[in-house]
């Protein structure tokens, strides 16, 4: 498909990127602009993103793993969206490795208020991957009610193949 014949904004949305997605660029080679293509993995590196949503209910947890790979979180961010009836309870996000003998700890703490919040997450130290090489996120509420607000967690990560 010749690119100049169509506007990018007319194309279907790709959703989350794939590392092998191709990109077109131009590069100045000896004073002359020339066409090239690359892919996201080559140009930006192997970083990937994953998102998780906690609806504020008790007992939330979600496994994040991919068979045959070590999941290595590089950066974790969360966005809290307040609900209509803030409880002012403290909520914690936990992270542990997936599998027997899991180790981990809480990685973020915030209050269920009426204000939107950006929540920074950090891996507990030391964080270990055991037999399944993935991680498990969980939500804990210090209180008796579900949260009024909700949390969306974004993890920037890489995958490594075990040696």
């Amino acid at each position, binding site marked *: *498909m*010749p*690119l*100049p*014949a169509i*506007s*990018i*904004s007319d194309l279907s949305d790709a959703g989350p990127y794939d590392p092998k997605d*191709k*990109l*077109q*660029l*131009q*590069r*100045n080679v000896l004073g002359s602009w*020339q*066409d*090239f*293509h*690359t892919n996201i993995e*080559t*140009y*930006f*590196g*192997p*970083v990937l993103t994953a998102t998780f949503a906690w609806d504020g209910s008790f007992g939330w947890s979600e496994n994040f793993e991919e068979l045959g790979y*070590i999941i*290595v*979180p*590089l*950066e974790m961010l969360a966005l809290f969206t307040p609900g209509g009836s803030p409880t002012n309870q403290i909520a914690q996000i936990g992270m542990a490795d997936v599998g027997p003998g899991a180790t981990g700890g809480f990685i973020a703490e915030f209050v269920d208020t009426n204000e939107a919040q950006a929540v920074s997450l*950090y*891996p*507990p*130290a*030391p*964080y*270990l*991957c*055991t037999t399944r*090489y993935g991680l498990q996120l969980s939500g804990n509420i210090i209180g008796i009610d579900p949260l009024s607000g909700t949390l969306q967690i974004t993890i920037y990560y*890489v995958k*490594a193949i*075990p*040696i």
Partner: protein
Amino acid sequence: MANRSIHQQPFASNRVAGDVFMIDRSTNTLKLDESALPPTLLTAQVVIASADVLTMFTTPIQVIPAADAGTVYFVRGGIIEFANGSANYATNTNAMLVSTTTPTAPAFLASIASRTVVPLFSQTGTASVVAGDSVSITVQTGNPTAGDSDLTVTVWYYIQAI
């Protein structure tokens, strides 16, 4: 741009200052310089023989070679994997990634106490790497003892111009 499909154009296997992408923004088609895009995440990996692990406090091992002049590394994460061993390292098992010229300031820590797990480096404080410096792995306090595993250390990082 030429009237060809993307895959018909030569492959750019690296990132070069001044590269431009074509984007659509609202109703305008614009060019976007590569410097406005996220930095490239790079990977470094070293295999450390057990004998060198046992002296890693007195002799740190370089993981990322010295940065070019005018650049600095931002370490983003890493893992340690164990191979060929049968005994755990017994003491001084807090491995840390450091700026080689200032090895006393730990930025990322990982435990090498158990050879049956894959420790991920955790950032424990303000991570600082000296401009132009390399990044090395060492351990806190003193040399490890007893262990006999080789270590494969993989580190992901950015390069930033200063």
